[in-house]
């Protein structure tokens, strides 16, 4: 038995230790790794009617992955332009949502983390309570707010800024707002957590040594908050790239989110292997992108867990 396991059992007792270890293993292996492996397996198989599963035609193939890149065999185009465009648009949009969210949430997290008192708790509560409301209801509420006769358009037209209502839905503004709003807390809280532990004297020391506010942030606060920022950005990026409800409800009619394509494959086309292949491509790309960015910004894996 490795020594860390021995120590773990010594500390928690054999019964409690086995129980905890069992639960963690069940969680990671049973609920995460095994289902994903079966998805991986699916993605390399052809879509067959049930009687033929396990038959001679059930062989491993790259067909599903080829489909994403080249489209249907004998199709009119060289590449599967529609799906690829959706794929890249989703990634770019998820990156934009993440950046937008970071710009919005960093000042809030900084304010919450560096101020003390009751009003901070009230503020935090006001951020949390809207999340008691179901995600779908929240998305529909945003749809109403951004709608043709919604609050925002009424104000814009009423005050004479626009002559006619602006179509926030068709221009995807509602979608970005909805995605941004959906994950605000996941951005705020990791950053808040680190900034709260930042000694306020460091900020004052920097100010005392002549630094204007933006240099204090650049040199002192942001480097310190980097683990929280990376952790927040990773979560927001992963979750918005993988979001389904917000794009379904708030997306314009012409703009699909890649997850919607996956959903269509599974649900409308009943083509599980194709859906699995799409899902795997999205997952792997997102992970690679996050790892690449972590390297660029010199973030360690351990920091993400903070």
């Amino acid at each position: 038995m490795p020594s860390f396991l021995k120590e773990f059992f010594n500390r928690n007792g054999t019964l409690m230790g086995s129980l905890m270890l069992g639960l963690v293993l069940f969680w990671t292996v049973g609920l995460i790794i095994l289902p994903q492996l079966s998805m991986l397996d699916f993605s390399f198989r052809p879509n067959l009617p049930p009687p033929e599963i396990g038959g001679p035609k059930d062989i491993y193939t790259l067909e599903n992955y080829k489909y994403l890149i080249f489209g249907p065999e004998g199709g009119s185009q060289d590449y599967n332009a529609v799906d690829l465009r959706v794929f890249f648009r989703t990634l770019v949009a998820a990156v934009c949502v993440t950046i937008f969210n970071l710009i919005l949430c960093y000042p809030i997290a900084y304010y919450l983390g560096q101020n003390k008192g009751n009003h901070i708790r009230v503020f935090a509560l006001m951020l949390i309570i809207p999340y008691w409301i179901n995600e779908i209801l929240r998305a529909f509420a945003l749809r109403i707010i951004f709608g043709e006769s919604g609050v925002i358009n009424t104000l814009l037209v009423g005050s004479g800024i626009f002559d006619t209502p602006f179509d926030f839905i068709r221009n995807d503004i509602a979608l970005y707002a909805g995605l941004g709003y959906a994950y605000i807390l996941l951005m705020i809280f990791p950053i808040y957590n680190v900034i709260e532990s930042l000694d306020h004297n460091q900020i004052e020391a920097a100010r005392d040594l002549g630094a204007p506010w933006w240099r204090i942030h650049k040199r002192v606060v942001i480097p310190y908050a980097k683990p929280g920022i990376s952790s927040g950005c990773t979560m927001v990026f992963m979750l918005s790239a993988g979001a389904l409800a917000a794009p379904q409800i708030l997306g314009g009619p012409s703009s699909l989110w890649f997850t919607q394509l996956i959903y269509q494959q599974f649900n409308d086309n009943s083509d599980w292997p194709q859906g699995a292949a799409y899902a795997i491509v999205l997952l792997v790309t997102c992970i690679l992108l996050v790892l690449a960015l972590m390297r660029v910004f010199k973030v360690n894996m351990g920091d993400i867990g903070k």
Partner: protein
Amino acid sequence: MSAGVGVDLENLWIRFGDFVAVRDANVHIKGGDFFSFLGPSGCGKTTILRAVSGFLEPSEGNVLIGGNNMQGIGPNKRPTALIFQNLALFPLMKVWENITFSMEIAGASARDRRKRADELLDMIALPGQGDKLPSELSGGQRQRVAIARALCAEPDVLLLDEPLSALDLKLRQHMRTELREIQKRVGITFIYITHDQGEALTMSDDIAVMRAGVIDQIADGKTIYNDPATAFAASFVGENNVFRGKVLEVRGDQALIRTNRSGDLLSRISTANKGKMNVGDDAMMFIRPEALSLAPTGTQGDHFVTAKVNHEEFEGNTFNIFMEGDGGKELKVAIPNHGQSFEDHSGQDMTLEYEVNNAVAVPAGELAAE
């Protein structure tokens, strides 16, 4: 030594809501001086320092640095540098980056900064340690880096908020000498805050003794020790024995005091209170443990005290005798050890003698907490 830049506090009041943290402080600090604010924890020392450095606007009154009113000028624009109680070094920057942070802000090149950092590292006796992180240094070394970081900004006034309180005793005593030497070398004004009277006495040109937001006395260390202005200053700075009573008679610069339990005792009136103590006033008289000596038991007179011995201890350089004192506080006598024989007097009455000049009378007032 250059003339240096002086600091003046004029009728300074600082309030937090209804709470008065600093009450009408008037202080003149000469340029190039090592000036200390000495007082117990919570008396408003840090608050005063924050008003000088610009982190806090006074509720009333003015802060003048080099004769210029600092009102409305932010901390990043004042010619001061503050050393924080917890140092507040930047943990993610290397030592040399920490030290030259002010130059980085001013836009100096990396090469200039590196050069200056090396000079300062030499000065604080940490040559070649510039590439370490603050966490890789010891407490005393971090302390010196904080000083170098503040000095690198070339302030006219260096503000130090109990910078030695986190160090162990030995290092603390060593750093006292070092700080004083650095101050002499750079020749700028140091304003030092401490609750440790030993630090204040050994390092300062002048000391302001503070009590609950009020400055009781401003003077050099010797004057404060020998000629305290208030009961608080007398009891806070150094060990002191207190005798409470009423003024019975004023004889020029001396007062005869009818003490509560030691008869009528004669004492010098402290300089600050000359002409202000009148017959019948409540008064306190202070005599240091080392100013008392043994006298033949039962001697009567206006400079003899008789009391019962509670217990005794041997401290090496002194024999200490603890006797029944006034107001529940023990009366302490320190007899220098010359190798003389010394017998235990516990439970017996003993008589002590003092020179009238070594006893000092002030109006009755609040005493420092033990």
